[in-house]
């Protein structure tokens, strides 16, 4: 049996808020297989972003486990988590999160160089070409439009060929047409690289592209719509089914 790419067990995150404890995520159990494309849906405050942060080791759970490729990560040091992200996880954010003092090409270069992979410039140029920005590599983020910035972010996210890609409202700050173009690129790159993609959105149209749709409400999995083609055998999808 193949190990699941990501496994969440009883994942809980509470935040102190004005003297009280606010439960953001409440005992969530989820499993993602290699190559799966899942969308996480839910109204704001339902815990979508927190779920993503916990999966990437950006945040630490109050209780429960995050297991990536069979390794629990919640006890890892900051250094260990950083190395995990370096090797396994790519990101796309709603607000792009490009490094403002780096050119587009340098932003894409950074994860490749961190891994010390050969021919980083070639790979960066290839990715910039794939997102249609091969002539804008020397521009700084402030000189690019929102859509262009998000395409640079996409190129950067795929640069190190991470097995996992986490996207947080990647089209949230873009107009419809631009958003669609970015989504096309995202799904195309994912398909080409065989990446596991977990995408957070509140837009059903975006979620419709995914094979699996997980609905969050008040920190709990309200509904987990499995892909129409059957789940690979033996992958026990736990979670609160309707």
């Amino acid at each position, binding site marked *: 049996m193949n190990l699941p790419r990501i496994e969440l067990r009883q994942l809980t995150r509470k935040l102190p808020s004005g003297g009280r404890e606010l439960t953001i995520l409440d005992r969530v159990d989820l499993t993602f297989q290699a190559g799966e494309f899942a969308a996480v849906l839910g109204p704001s405050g339902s815990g979508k972003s927190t779920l993503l942060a916990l999966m990437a080791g*950006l*945040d630490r759970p109050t209780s429960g486990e995050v297991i990536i490729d069979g390794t629990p990560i919640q006890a890892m040091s*900051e*250094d260990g988590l950083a190395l995990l*992200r*370096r090797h396994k996880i790519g990101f796309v954010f709603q607000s792009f*999160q490009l490094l403002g003092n780096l050119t587009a090409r340098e932003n894409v270069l*950074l994860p490749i160089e*961190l891994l010390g992979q050969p021919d980083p410039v070639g790979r960066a140029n290839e990715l910039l070409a794939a997102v249609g920005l091969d002539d804008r590599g020397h521009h700084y983020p402030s000189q690019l439009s929102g859509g262009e910035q998000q395409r640079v972010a996409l190129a950067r996210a795929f640069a190190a060929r991470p097995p996992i890609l986490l996207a947080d409202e990647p089209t949230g700050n873009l107009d419809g047409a631009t958003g669609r173009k970015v989504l096309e690129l995202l799904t195309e790159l994912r398909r080409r690289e065989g990446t596991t993609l977990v995408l957070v959105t509140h837009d059903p149209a975006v979620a419709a592209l995914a094979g699996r749709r997980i609905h969050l409400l008040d920190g709990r999995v309200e509904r987990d719509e499995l892909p129409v083609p059957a789940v690979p055998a033996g992958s026990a999808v736990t979670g609160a089914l309707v």
Partner: protein
Amino acid sequence: MSPGFFLRTLLRESRGSRGRLTFFIACLAVGVSAVVAVAGLSASLDQGIRREARQLLAADLAIRGSQPIPPAVNGALAHVSGLQRTNLRETVTVATVSSRDGRPGPSQLVELKVVDGVYPFYGKLVLKPARPLHELLNARTTVVGSELLARLGRKVGDDILIGGQPFRVAGTVVSEPDRVSISFTLGPRAFLSGEGFARTSLEGQGSRVSYRALFKLPEGSTAAELNAAASAVKDILPVNENYRVETYRQAQPALRENLSRIERFLGLVALLSLFVGGIGVAQSVRAWLTGRLDSIAILKCLGMRPREIFPLYLGQTLLLGLAGSLVGIVAGAAVQLFLPRLFPDLIPAELINPWQPVALLRGLALGVGVALLFSLPPLSAVLRVPPARVLRRDAEPLPRHRWVASATILILGLGIWGMAALQSHSPRLGAEFTGGVALVTALLAGTALLVIWLVRRLPRDFASLWLRQGLAALARPGAAGTSAIVALGLGVLVVLGMSLVQQRLAAQLSAEMPSNAPSAFLVDIQPDQWPGVEKVLHDAGATGVESVPVVMARLSAIDGVKVEQLVERRERDRRWGLTREQRLTYMKELPKDNKIVEGKLWSDPDPSPAHAEVSLEKEFAEGIGARLGSTLSFDIQGVPLDLKVTSLRTVNWQTFGINFFLVVEPGVLESAPQQRLAVARLPKGGEQRAQDALAAGYPNVTMLRIREILEKVLKVLQRISLGIRFLGGFTVVAGIAILAGAISAGSSRRGREVALLKTLGMTRRGVAATFTAEYALIGLVAGGIGTAGATALAYGVITRGFQIPWQLDPLSLAVALGGTVVLAVVAGLAASYRALQRRPIEVLRTE
């Protein structure tokens, strides 16, 4: 991470922050320039002394002593063929002129130099007329400093009296090779020949004469030959008599030691301004990092480890530290070129050579060191930036590592101590300096926080709009004020504190001497002259005339251990107490300013000479290693005498009364060869009259005027104080740079404020007025704290250090306070100029 990738990332990360870090560089450069100026100047002077070493010694080899140079020296040097020797004797005496109308003529203390032989061997003795000294001097002539002629109202060719004998003035001295201009002198120079000096009989009457033999080795002698000659001489000189053998290759060890002492002291003052700059560095880094939090979060998100990001930012501060230090080095070199113009009588321009690699390296090392050290505390925040910030702006910081805070403080403390130790050449002084700076900074910061806390609680309703805005700005949480206040306050403290001390000293000296203190010391009075001298003093209006006998003696053993043996066990600088010429007096009762602390005065009932008693000053006793019950053996001009220590006492030296380390019981020394020493309090006009009369009637008696000596001491103090205040000025500049930096760091917030105020209908002038109120308040608080600190410091130094009464000087305090306010307002408005110029729409649009 490969080094190449690290460097690339470092350079990329530095983009866009370069402009914001101007203040980082400015703060650092100010301090570095002070450090470089001090180190470079001192190195220049040191080089000058080494270069001119032969001229300054006027010989290859010199022997000095308070006793005649023993004839055995000739034997020790007999093997050096072609050796030339000149003997010098020096003493202080009085020169006067014979009176025509029976009244004494004017008189003047002179530094007499008696020359037997060619002088100088090296360097130039410039005389007018331009002839060699030995051609002008004979048994009946003298050559003197021209200021002496002016004082006595005589000219070249006239006769003057020295030691009661007439000498014709054959010429004047323009410059002497071995008289350093900054050294302390008691009067103008007068040269006599050996035969001339013999006519005066000054030497036979117990005057303090110092002896010097100058030697010139044959041309082409090697350093080894010189050293061999020096050690041959040292071998035969008795260790228990204070002879000093010096070669020109040692290049004036005493003078250079003095310079080095001043350098170490001023170096610490310069370091202080660098540390104040360090506060600015920390503040700049903190402001800079605040703008980089997102970037750091993204880097962490992309998989960069905290331990990789931290060096990235530390590397940036290193680059900035290098840049700031280089700017400071250039400025420090420029300061050195500029200094001789500022203090022409103090620093000869021809000596200055700003290219002092060691000084420049020191500036670089200290500058970079301060940049790295002071940026450590703010940089440690890098470790706590939460990567979750990429998703949530308000993500809480990562938990603090327990060891990070303690390690940061430890490294900072050790680093500061290391730098202070380097600057002061002494780990202990470095530690004291570090402790002192930490304490003062903590006090200043505590006071600043207290004031801000109070301002926050102050009702503001009563105040005008401008003042209200200013108070609100000062009280704003996290306002930039605190570190600027501390830095500026520290600068004011140093500059004002120093000038308060100096002013108080000057004021004290120009006022009348305290009524119970003597104003003149008279030395070398022969016992039979005393009644006459006493009459002269009374005729000049003297009060409080006291006189005691003085017997000169040498210590030969303590408790049977010979001084020669004791000396060998001592460090060089602690031998003086043993080998000096001891002055003994005898009296039945001690003067009022003496207090017995151990034993009992004259407590041995046995009156026989075998049980003669002596009372020792406590510190002197500790210095020579004598205790209650010790037996001190003396040699009084060939006659041995044993004295038993039966009491120890403390002396209040500040009264200027006559006091002795060694007081012998009466009935022991009465028949020994002796002189008298006297003190008297003379009215202002009476001092010169008494000196003139003494010079006419008792030419061997020397009168030292305390006021004159103190004024000379004050002059030396003033020069040092000038140096400190000059360097303290750098601290003020650093403080101003910090204030400007703090304001500039908050300029986007300030821009928004301006926009809002303008939108609400406030004119540009109105906005400037609110800013002025804010900066004036910062200046007021900083000036107030600094002024209070300076007053406390000066009070301590004046009452404890100098033991003179304290007097508040409200004018200086007001000037310092007002000056700080003006500086803060000017610097603050200059730093907010851009914010003031912005139009509301530009700012609001970007919101």
